[in-house]
């Protein structure tokens, strides 16, 4: 063998190659993680970008643009009209005097007004009115710079009336022109100071403002108009067309529409609404994330209500009271729960559990009450049984006895509940609820809670069992040596010590429940409602993604809002998991110190 301190070339290259390969895969994994975050953010960022607009060189017009005739004549209306607005289809029309007296009518009405009223209470001069596209809202601008938005809202008899929805922040001078966007709920205003402002119906503040430099006295500017794609805003004077390019791809999404209650067209009050598609083309997309977030939290909450006590109690038993052999076996069996694909759980919850719960509601209620009591009863009877029995059933086989006992009790409870149901309530408990005015949906949060609870039990159990089992044994041994019973050692030493770990287990379970998709998708009605009612359905962020993302147009506001939902999920689970991780690490250090 050689005397030099050099390796064979083959081994040297092999070593370098391997290092490069390992480094490459390490780096590529890092890159992928980075790509995950960067990509999700990159799809959301355009929503946050402010609206921009730049002036183009003005065109001189060969001939004068004919401005729409202002003098609409209304039969049988005694006031002299000064302003006139007609909706895109020409169906809804409105005339108003400059003092603000208005007459609203439809094309079918030959004479008279459907609604006659004053647009403004205070003394002001009406300077412009305009319908927004989709004919559901009217805008009115005043000399003082005020700007009002009116909605068509049907009254009790079903006749639509205009109702004042909001006063937008007043501008500094008279609003001379209002131009609606095409097919969107945005509009632009031009005031007497020559300032253009771009608004979106659901948002209060202007999205974009720009002084045009036009010394716009009332006769000079004839009209303000959007191009068909809303990317060009034109201001027409007698012989010039001043043009502004606008970059405003997502006016319907901002902080307010996502998180605050918004008064949408066709609603009688502000509300949190998620509605992204509808039968008609001409709808206003409504992107409130509140119902979805509430739905996610609601589902996770009810799942935890079921899973956390069950998993933690089970973990206390396996970690603190079972010898190593049975503990391993029972752990393996409970972790079998994790092997069930959630799509199967969701399917069973939807087609079997939901109807069964509906027809056995009383039984379920009784079961929850009776089950613990029956266990206590068994515990009381147990010491009186022959000691040979007791002896045979120790060290983990009590669990088998309990399983049989629980089965028997459950059977009896549900059987008895059927009789009770028809005996106590004439048409059964379910109809009794209806009579009480409790709204009951078949696929509701209760079903979700049970099905999803099943899915998160193994996760919580595994962590809880771990932290309880890792409590340094010398501590509990010390307590036992001082004459404490095993139970006292657990309740006084192990549980307080491991409590942060149990909370971490719950956090992990909560994160898992928030991210669960199939069970919620299949076993709820997926209606985006904003409440915590146990007997109603819900729509979660995850289910919304699953339903809507495949159909959303790439790059549209809808698409991007769905990415916001995905980021939100990421954020929620990240917070839950990070908190859990920190807690567990602290606990591990604490254990080591002890």
């Amino acid at each position: 063998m050689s005397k030099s301190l050099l390796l064979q070339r083959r081994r040297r290259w092999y070593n370098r190659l391997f290092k490069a390969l390992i480094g490459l895969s390490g780096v590529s994994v890092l890159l992928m993680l980075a790509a995950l975050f960067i990509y999700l953010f990159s799809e959301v960022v355009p929503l946050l970008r402010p609206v921009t607009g730049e002036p183009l060189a003005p065109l001189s017009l060969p001939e004068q643009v004919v401005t729409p005739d202002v003098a609409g004549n209304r039969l049988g209306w005694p006031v002299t009209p000064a302003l006139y607005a007609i909706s895109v289809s020409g169906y809804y029309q409105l005339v108003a005097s400059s003092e603000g007296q208005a007459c609203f009518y439809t094309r079918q009405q030959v004479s008279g007004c459907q609604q006659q009223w004053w647009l403004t209470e205070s003394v002001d001069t009406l300077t412009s009115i305009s319908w927004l596209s989709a004919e559901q809202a009217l805008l009115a601008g005043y000399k003082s710079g005020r700007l009002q938005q009116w909605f068509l809202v049907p009254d009790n008899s079903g006749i639509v009336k205009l109702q004042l929805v909001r006063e937008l922040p007043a501008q500094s001078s008279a609003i001379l022109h209002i131009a609606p966007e095409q097919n969107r709920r945005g509009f632009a205003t031009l005031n007497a100071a020559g300032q253009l402002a771009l608004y979106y119906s659901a948002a209060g503040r202007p999205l974009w403002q720009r002084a045009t430099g036009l010394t716009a006295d009332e006769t000079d500017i004839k009209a303000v108009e959007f191009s068909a794609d809303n990317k060009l805003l034109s201001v027409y004077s007698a012989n010039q067309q001043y043009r502004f390019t606008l970059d405003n791809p997502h006016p319907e999404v901002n902080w307010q529409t996502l998180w605050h209650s918004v008064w949408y067209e066709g609603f009688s009050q502000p509300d949190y609404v998620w509605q992204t598609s509808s039968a008609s083309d001409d709808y206003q997309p409504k992107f409130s994330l509140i119902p979805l977030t509430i739905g996610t939290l609601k589902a996770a909450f009810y799942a935890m209500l079921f899973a956390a006590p069950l998993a933690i109690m089970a973990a206390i038993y396996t970690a603190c009271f079972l010898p190593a052999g049975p503990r391993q076996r029972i752990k393996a069996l409970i972790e079998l729960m994790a092997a069930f694909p959630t799509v199967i759980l969701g399917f069973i919850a939807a087609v079997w559990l939901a109807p069964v719960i509906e027809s056995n509601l009383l039984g379920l209620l009784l079961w929850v009450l009776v089950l613990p009591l029956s266990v206590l009863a068994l515990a009381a009877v147990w010491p009186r049984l022959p000691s040979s029995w007791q002896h045979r059933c120790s060290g983990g086989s009590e669990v088998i006895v309990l399983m049989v006992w629980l089965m028997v009790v459950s059977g009896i409870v549900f059987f008895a509940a059927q009789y009770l149901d028809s005996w106590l309530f004439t048409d059964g408990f379910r109809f009794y609820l209806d009579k009480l005015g409790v709204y009951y949906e078949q696929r509701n949060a209760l079903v979700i809670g049970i099905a999803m609870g099943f899915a998160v039990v193994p996760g919580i159990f595994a962590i809880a069992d771990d932290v309880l089992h890792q409590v340094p044994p010398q501590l509990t041994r010390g307590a036992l040596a001082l004459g404490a019973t095993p139970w006292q050692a657990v309740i006084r030493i192990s549980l307080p010590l491991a409590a942060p770990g149990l909370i971490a287990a719950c956090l992990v379970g909560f994160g898992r429940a928030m991210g669960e998709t199939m069970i919620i998708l299949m076993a709820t009605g997926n209606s985006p409602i904003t409440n915590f009612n146990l007997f109603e359905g819900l729509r979660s962020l995850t289910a919304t993604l699953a339903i809507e993302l495949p159909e959303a147009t790439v790059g549209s506001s809808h698409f991007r809002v769905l990415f916001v939902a995905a980021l939100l999920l990421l954020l929620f689970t990240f917070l839950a998991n990070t908190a859990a991780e920190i807690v567990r690490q602290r606990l591990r250090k604490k254990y080591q110190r002890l």
Partner: protein
Amino acid sequence: MNMEIVAKLDVQDLSVKFADKTVLQRINLRIPEHKITAFIGPSGCGKSSLLRSFNRMNELLEDTTTTGRVLLDGKNVYQPDVEVAELRRRVGIVFQKPNPFPHSVYENVAFGLRLQGIKQERKLDELVESALKKAALWNEVRDRLHASAVNLSGGQQQRLVIARAIAIEPEVLLLDEPASALDPISTLKIEELMYDLKQHYTIVIVTHNMQQAARVSDFTAFLNMGQLIEFDETNKMFTDPSQRATEDYITGRFG
């Protein structure tokens, strides 16, 4: 001290730091060829670190910095063009705790040989046998060459590890308290083994056990607090140490 001897390892101004803690301070030492040199000293004096610096094992521990030079046959092993793997092939090391690989006895010994690219079964068989014989283990394991090495006794395991190390014919064999985890009989066997091995190898041994050092070594170095206090022939060291500290340690007055 006789300076005529051929120095296999020449340590010059060697300092070793773990993180911010200096464990060895400017050590100068010449390890003679084909002799057994023992390092003694109280725990934490840096004797193991010194041993490990000869084949750059320290680098595998966290955060160490080494300055100075260690010349192996006149070539500085800390030079950047030195291949660490080849250095360790030439300067083998055996640790305090036996660490056989969880393979068979045969595979444990053949492991290093295979790394060197030896593939022919017959040659491997030959080399494994001779290594096991040199390590005085052949008679005990010849019938269970293909049984797992982990089932051997502690002393057998340690001799297996030595066999594994000498199978690739290193020039220097570093032994880091090789017998401290073993029973007296195994210890005796290891000591006999060392005596046999010194014909072919230069051996450096770290030991806690003064009697062991006195029994097996030709030269002894006494280290304390990261410094080399005294280095001399073992006979002289144990009968007439030149330093007071050495005498105190050897006679058991401190340490």
